[in-house]
């Protein structure tokens, strides 16, 4: 059955009609194939304008509608809704722009009118091929998964739990807290890290809406926005969390000592250990790779002394399947291994430290009890702090890590404060980036404490003395680029402000969750400015430094943003899924799989049985990358398919029929 098209040409007051002969365009449209009515009106978007369309749909049995007026970006929705009120599927509508793209930009009225006619002809030709489409509404599971329990994950979990929604918080390590739990003081306020983070960690443990799983990892994610099934592996702790009282006797009695990861290798821990007394949960964990009971089959000291019988060498890993509607990723960052910058001698010279090591050196519960001392137990008389190690460096990371300038200033202050004012501190920097609230003020304060700033990236650190004052010291060799002369600075201790970088397993995690990584390796946000917390995968959001380097205030703000986005979906309880997505015709698809590699949203899967590619409509965004490339023409985006585009082209380019006063059509 041929379609019955109604065409409506707007005057927009004089905005269109001042240049384009709107009534003339309507008369022209009335002569086009399948057009049964064409009208022009002063303001189509007004109520009477819309009512005109609704009335015609009902009374004249229109099956298609075309409106020629302003940009569809303005009023497409208005007219689609009018169609719907008239009883017509909103996708059987086409809008063409004769204002922004025509009356406002074509100087000559005759030319403007001719262009408007062409645009209307194209819209009429296209609308013939439109199909009825229906948005799908999917329910959203109210529970939320948060992955990673650093400060960002903690913030996100608490925000969500506060709303009454249930949160599953999955943390890989034995305790939550992330990097922040390693610090003693935080810039720029110098408030004690534990004092501000411990209450939050405890709040997580006490919040009934949070199901905290430590020593756990997500191994598989299936489903789509609103309906994710997540498989979590819980690794054994070998200590029964319900029985343990956290007394710590086991750790005293354990005979096996190894270097501690939490202490960044500058302190030791036992085979049964916990990060710090503030750990949440504060149950210790047995490391089976070093525990004598596991390695040699005998010891059991901890078991013997545990007053509550909590030690359980028989624990096994277990798997748990969770249903959630949305996911917040907060897996944080790693720091660059400075071993790759061999010129700085990290690992070769014992007095060269990373920033994180220095944090531990400085921490009241760290290996030195918070005293800044060298390996020989003496406080350093002079310290060099090298900024931008591996950051802003095309051989390593091009980006700025955003926190190093600031924590270097923090160290400046702490050294002056703890070692004494006589201790000399040299900062080797490229630029000082103190952009945050209170940061520039902190910079000024530290400058006034009498530390030295040398602009230039050091070339090398050596223990080869050339002068008597260099004997027994580490010599930082570089150039003071402000003075334009080479410098050799002998110091007792060196701190490397190593770059923040993506987690070493970021690619693997991105694959599990079906999201992308940016050029720098951090997880890719949906839009660099307007979508910094969402990802290209609906229902998966980012929080904190897994998206890029951030300080604590920014990580927390970002996390609250991610939590808010996840909550918006969870609270609504349903999500409408656009129907203008791609579809692969299984009769045409040759199974070449080209589209699968092109889809940036991992929305295409291969059906091994039928040997064709299949689109998951809930994940497809309708970008058309697949359709634009499918060699067989099997993949087509709904509402932008080949027939529709071809028809629009023909309408645009075929010589239009002459304007005739139509016999059958009704012209208003």
């Amino acid at each position, binding site marked *: 059955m041929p379609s019955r098209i109604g065409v409506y040409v707007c005057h927009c007051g004089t905005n269109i009609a001042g240049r384009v002969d709107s009534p003339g365009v309507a008369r022209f449209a009335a002569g086009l194939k399948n057009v049964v009515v064409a009208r022009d009106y002063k303001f189509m978007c007004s109520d009477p304008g819309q009512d005109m369309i609704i009335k015609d749909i009902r009374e004249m049995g229109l099956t298609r509608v075309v409106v020629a007026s302003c940009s569809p970006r303005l009023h497409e929705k208005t007219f689609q809704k009018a169609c719907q009120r008239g009883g017509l599927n909103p996708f059987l509508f086409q809008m063409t*722009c004769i204002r922004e793209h025509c009356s406002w930009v074509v100087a000559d009225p005759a030319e*403007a009118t001719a262009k408007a006619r062409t645009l209307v002809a194209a819209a009429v030709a296209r609308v013939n091929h439109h199909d009825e489409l229906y948005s799908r509404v999917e329910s959203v599971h109210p529970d939320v998964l948060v992955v990673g329990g650093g400060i960002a994950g903690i913030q996100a979990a608490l925000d969500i739990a506060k709303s009454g929604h249930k949160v599953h918080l999955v943390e890989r390590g034995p305790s939550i807290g992330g990097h922040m739990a390693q610090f003693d003081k935080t810039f720029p306020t110098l408030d004690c890290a534990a004092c501000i983070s411990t209450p939050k960690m405890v709040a997580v443990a006490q919040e009934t809406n949070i199901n905290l799983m430590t020593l756990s990892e997500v191994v598989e994610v299936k489903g789509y926005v609103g309906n994710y099934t997540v498989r979590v592996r819980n690794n054994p702790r070998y200590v029964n969390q319900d029985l343990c009282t956290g007394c710590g006797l086991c750790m005293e009695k354990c005979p096996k000592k190894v270097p501690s990861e939490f202490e960044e290798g500058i302190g030791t821990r036992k085979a049964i250990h916990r990060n710090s007394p503030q750990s949440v949960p504060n149950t210790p964990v047995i490391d089976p790779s070093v525990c004598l009971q596991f390695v040699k089959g005998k010891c059991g000291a901890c078991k013997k002394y545990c007053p509550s019988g909590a030690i359980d060498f028989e624990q096994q890993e277990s798997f748990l399947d969770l249903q959630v509607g949305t996911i917040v990723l907060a897996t944080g960052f790693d720091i660059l291994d400075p071993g790759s910058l061999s010129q700085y001698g990290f690992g070769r010279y014992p007095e060269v430290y990373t920033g994180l090591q220095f944090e531990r050196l400085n921490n009241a519960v760290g290996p030195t009890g918070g005293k800044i001392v060298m390996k020989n137990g003496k406080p350093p008389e002079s310290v060099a702090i090298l900024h931008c190690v591996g950051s802003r460096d095309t051989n390593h990371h091009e980006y700025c890590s955003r926190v190093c300038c600031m924590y270097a200033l923090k160290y400046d202050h702490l050294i002056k404060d703890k070692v004494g004012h006589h201790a000399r501190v040299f900062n080797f920097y490229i630029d000082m980036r103190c952009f945050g609230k209170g940061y520039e003020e902190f910079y000024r304060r530290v400058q006034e404490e009498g530390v030295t700033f040398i602009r230039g990236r050091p070339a090398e650190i050596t223990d080869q003395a050339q002068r008597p004052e260099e004997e027994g010291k580490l010599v930082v060799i570089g150039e003071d680029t402000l003075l334009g002369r080479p410098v050799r600075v002998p110091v007792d201790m060196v701190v490397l402000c190593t770059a923040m970088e993506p987690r070493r397993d970021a690619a693997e995690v991105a694959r599990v969750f079906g999201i992308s990584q940016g050029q720098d390796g951090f997880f890719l946000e949906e839009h660099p400015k307007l979508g910094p917390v969402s990802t290209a995968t609906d229902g998966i959001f980012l929080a904190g430094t897994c998206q890029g380097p951030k300080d604590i205030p920014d990580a927390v703000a970002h996390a609250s943003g991610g939590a808010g986005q996840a909550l918006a979906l969870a609270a609504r309880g349903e999500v409408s899924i656009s129907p203008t997505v791609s579809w692969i015709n299984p009769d045409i698809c040759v199974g070449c799989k080209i589209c699968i590699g092109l889809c940036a949203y991992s929305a295409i899967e291969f059906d091994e049985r039928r040997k064709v590619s299949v689109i998951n409509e809930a994940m497809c965004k309708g*970008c*058309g*990358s697949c359709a634009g490339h499918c060699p067989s023409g099997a993949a087509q985006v709904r509402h*932008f398919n080949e027939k529709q585009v071809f028809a629009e082209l023909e309408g645009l380019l075929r010589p239009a029929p002459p304007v005739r006063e139509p016999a059958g059509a009704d012209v208003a």
Partner: protein
Amino acid sequence: MQELIVTPETAPLGAPEAAFEPAIVAFVCNWCTYTAADLAGTARMVQSPNVRLIRMMCTGMVDPKYIIKALLEGADAVLVSGCHPGDCHYINGNYKARRRMKLLKEILPRFGIDERRLKLTWVGASEGNEFAATVNRFAADIRELGPIDTRRLPLL
């Protein structure tokens, strides 16, 4: 794609037409260039009426077939325009478009079509002036190049 033997494009017979006005089709993405076109309109930037837009969601959607079809239907040139590299609403559709356009530009001469009749540009959503300038420049270039003569092409 099948190899085609065609006569190369020649200037139309007879005297060059006094006022040749090319027909140009522009496939533009909804998020950037179409928005820029709206902005150019709002700012009343006068443009050559020869360029007519087809709104696509992304340049990555523009199948080379569409471009060939446009040229065969009588368009004298085709403009494809989208978001700047890195700004594509769909992450990287524009990179895919860029790859495809490059290949197409290599193939077009085999159809007897000057590759200058296909142009790919990036015009961001805020660049109304850039959009108007692109349209006017391209229309002028094609006016100079003269009308296309594809209807004589065999086979297609």
